């Protein structure tokens, strides 16, 4: 099936998210859509999937112009979509999820579970997407849930599959497997639109690359293009992809964690006997797949989660039972992994967000009242210093792009003297141009003598920034590696293999 988008324009009020976009996806082709966050990729795909009505332009399938009033129409036309955030019902089985929305029924409206199971088995086998059809989706790891999403699309006879940032939640091994699946789908004649901002993956799998910037197609590229060329096309200027840093000059131990356990109220062990030390002037990175206890580890350090046992000390003083307010006051900066959820208040202005943890301290305020002049002055300075792209410091934080939101959080946490910076997923959802900036600031903070505890699921970031790396799996630090270790070694540790296994593999 040949899919063509001609002159697609989508406007929201006075804002143009897509501006005359032309795109041709040939049958059996993997077409990568590369662009920064906010470039308009997802908007375009939502237009294609019938979720948004385009302001202008047409969608043509095999020469026939189409009009989609909703995802149902798009699916009937052979377009399937795997959203970045999965659209599965956790309490239903795999087979039930696959037939959801297009249920197979027997007489009297009874569900035909057997047929659903057969469909899942057949498709699993054809495309190497092994899944047990009778397992509840909530019991499946994220990588397998994604397979269910793909199966769901295939069960509807999708001829064009849209994958929206599919690798964001996967381990390196799972990513490799996904790429195999994509290749076998391609061999079978299915076209794939692969949306990503990860240059490495795009170059590895795509047949052709379309780069979008600020709602416009800015160029086509060949997978043989260098990462630097692609990044420059995405951002519109040359970008430095490697983090420039001098060797670390570690000082005293700033953060000491001893035998830390965090057990959830339901009895699940989230952090399992973690001991580590971070020295002043070094970056200690915790690598690992999302959901292996990294979040709880950082939350325990800043006092948001109460450890079940173990001790945490800051600059030699015990802070295990200290309140978050006091820990932050003692010189800990904290950048949470989920900005909009924990780091910012969307309806608050940038200026207010910049003093979210110092609003009651001089010069911004006292116990009774705020000093709005100081808050505004601070905002103007920070916006300038951290290059936050906004019309005004009074604009609500929710109007900023992901990268600029992250700059606001960084600006807040890094604009006071720090002993320790705890930073989670510093560049998640942050565009390439801002990533460079964020990385530079983290290294600058280290060079100022701050201990940095970095948590990231992006291996490239860990390797690029860290002075030491601990890999976290199932709540444990199962191995420490120098950042110079190979991706293979990291991958095995991240998948739960022990350090010795990892060494053998290398």
């Amino acid at each position, binding site marked *: 099936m040949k899919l063509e988008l001609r002159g697609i324009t989508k406007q929201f009020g006075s804002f143009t998210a897509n501006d005359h976009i032309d795109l041709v996806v040939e049958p059996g082709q993997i077409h990568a859509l590369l662009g920064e966050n906010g470039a308009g990729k997802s908007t375009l795909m939502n237009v294609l999937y019938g979720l948004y009505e385009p302001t202008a332009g047409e969608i043509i399938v095999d020469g026939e112009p189409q009009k989609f009033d909703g995802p149902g129409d798009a699916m009937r036309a052979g377009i399937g979509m795997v959203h970045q955030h999965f659209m599965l019902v956790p309490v239903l089985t795999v087979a039930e999820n696959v037939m959801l929305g297009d249920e197979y029924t027997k007489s009297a409206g009874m569900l035909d579970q057997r047929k659903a199971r057969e469909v899942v088995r057949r498709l699993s086998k054809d495309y190497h997407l092994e899944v047990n059809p009778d397992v509840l989706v909530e019991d499946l790891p994220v990588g397998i849930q994604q397979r269910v999403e793909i199966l769901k699309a295939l069960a509807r006879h999708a001829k064009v599959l849209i994958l929206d940032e599919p690798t964001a939640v996967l381990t390196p091994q799972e990513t490799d497997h996904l790429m195999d699946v994509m290749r076998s789908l391609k061999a079978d004649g299915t076209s794939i639109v692969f949306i990503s901002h990860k240059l490495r993956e795009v170059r590895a799998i795509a047949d052709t690359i379309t780069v979008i910037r600020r709602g416009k197609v800015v160029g086509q590229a060949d997978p043989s293009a260098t990462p630097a060329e692609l990044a420059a096309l995405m951002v519109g200027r040359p970008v430095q992809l490697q983090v420039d840093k001098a060797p670390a000059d570690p000082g005293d131990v700033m953060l000491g964690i001893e035998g830390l356990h965090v057990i959830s109220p339901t009895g699940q062990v989230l952090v399992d006997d973690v001991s580590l030390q971070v020295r002043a002037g070094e970056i200690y990175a915790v690598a690992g797949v999302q959901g292996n206890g990294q979040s709880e580890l950082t939350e325990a350090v800043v006092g948001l989660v109460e450890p079940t046992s173990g001790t945490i000390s800051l600059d030699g003083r015990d802070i295990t039972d200290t*309140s978050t307010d006091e820990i932050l006051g003692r010189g800990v900066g904290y950048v949470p992994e989920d900005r*909009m959820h924990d780091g910012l208040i969307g309806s608050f202005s940038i200026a207010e967000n910049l003093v979210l943890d110092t609003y009651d301290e001089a010069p911004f305020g006292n116990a009774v009242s705020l000093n709005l002049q100081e808050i505004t002055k601070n905002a103007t300075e920070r916006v300038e210093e951290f290059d936050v792209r906004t019309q005004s410091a009074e604009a609500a934080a929710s109007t*900023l792009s992901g990268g600029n939101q992250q700059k606001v959080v960084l600006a807040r946490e890094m604009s006071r003297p720090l002993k320790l910076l705890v930073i989670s997923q510093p560049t998640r959802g942050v565009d390439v141009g801002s990533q460079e900036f964020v990385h530079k600031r983290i290294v600058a903070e280290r060079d100022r003598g701050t201990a940095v505890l970095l948590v990231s699921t992006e291996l490239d970031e860990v390797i690029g920034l860290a002075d030491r790396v601990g890999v976290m799996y199932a709540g444990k630090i199962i191995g420490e590696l120098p950042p110079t270790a190979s991706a293979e070694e990291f991958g095995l540790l991240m998948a739960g293999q022990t350090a010795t296994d990892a060494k053998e593999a290398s």
Partner: protein
Amino acid sequence: MTDEGPEQQPAPPERGDVLVAEQEAGGQKTRDTIGDILRSDHPAVVTVLAVICAMIVGAILIIASDSATREAAGYFTAAPMDTISAAWDAVKDAYIALFQGAIYNPNAPQALSPISETLVYATPLILAGLSVTLAFRAGLFNIGAQGQILMSAALAGYIGFAWHLPAGIHIIVAIVGGIVGGAIWAAVAGLLKAKTGAHEVITTIMLNYIAVFFVNWLLTERWFQAPPYNQAQSRTVAGNAQFWHLMGSDLRVNFSFILAIAATVFVWWLLKYGTFGFRVRAVGANQDAARTAGMSVASTYIGVMIVVGALCGLAGVSQILGTANNYQVTASVDGGVGFTAITVALLGRGTAWGTFAAGLLFGALSAGSGQLQVATQTPPDLVQVLQALVVIFIAAPGLIRLIFRLRRSKSAGSAVLAKGWNG
């Protein structure tokens, strides 16, 4: 965060012709002109339009309930102008009566009496409305204004009739007593929320019941009830503890209205300049981010409920020490204000002065309903229908946008209000 909805689009200054044009025009900040605001769905615009829509629908109801119009409609085809003029008269008379009952009546012996009545009705609505508004801003839904007002009125009333203090001192002590009564009652809900997570909607409703029956019980006790003990009303508050009148002794408006203005200024200041207000807004808008920034959500809930209860305490004080209730505690001393206050707060859009204006509007409608009944055939219930219609139009801003073809802006919507249920 890679979801690229329209709200999250970056807006670097160099993008878009409009922005560039505005920058060239010299302005660093892009400011909306008055015309832009009037064509947008700015909350104030929507509120005014909602009131207008409600009055139009109200006009239809007036016409439908008017017997002269119905009679004329019987021979509509013969003389259509009769029906139209009868309808016009009915609507005109009704709204004029509302105005004369609420603002100014040149024909009455006391021409300013209507405005005085409006302020008397508005005072507790403003105070209790501010209470609900402040709770909204903390992400809490205070359904308990009724109970808080009752407890306040009971305590302030008791101090007022049982204690004997010098002039000046007595009223201050009684006011403080009312504030404390309301604050304690609300603090119970805050404490339960903070310590056990009990939903404040449920606890405040239950506390309302307790307060109602507590006051009922008080009214059977000899030390509280007025002799000769055959009516469910308390003794009368001593003159030293009564609010003084603002516009002469013939008009009921009294010092409690000044308290309502002061409370409005206080809530406005708190939400704009207060450190505690910042914490309240942060917890209300995103408690996870507030906690992450080191704020104590639990103590904010308790603290804000104390202030919320204190404001209802002032509403109770305005009822019992003011003219509205003959200076006597009864089972209905709250005057139904507790629930109307929720509507007032909704109409006030989460701001102090918005609530003040909404309280005045509702006070005017209540005051006007009397004249409506006296001067026209229109049932006074129309006023309640009007109040309900206003709220329906406010609650459905999409409807107003559709009718008046307003542009959708980013800031609009009633997020603050919807938040209350999630608290």
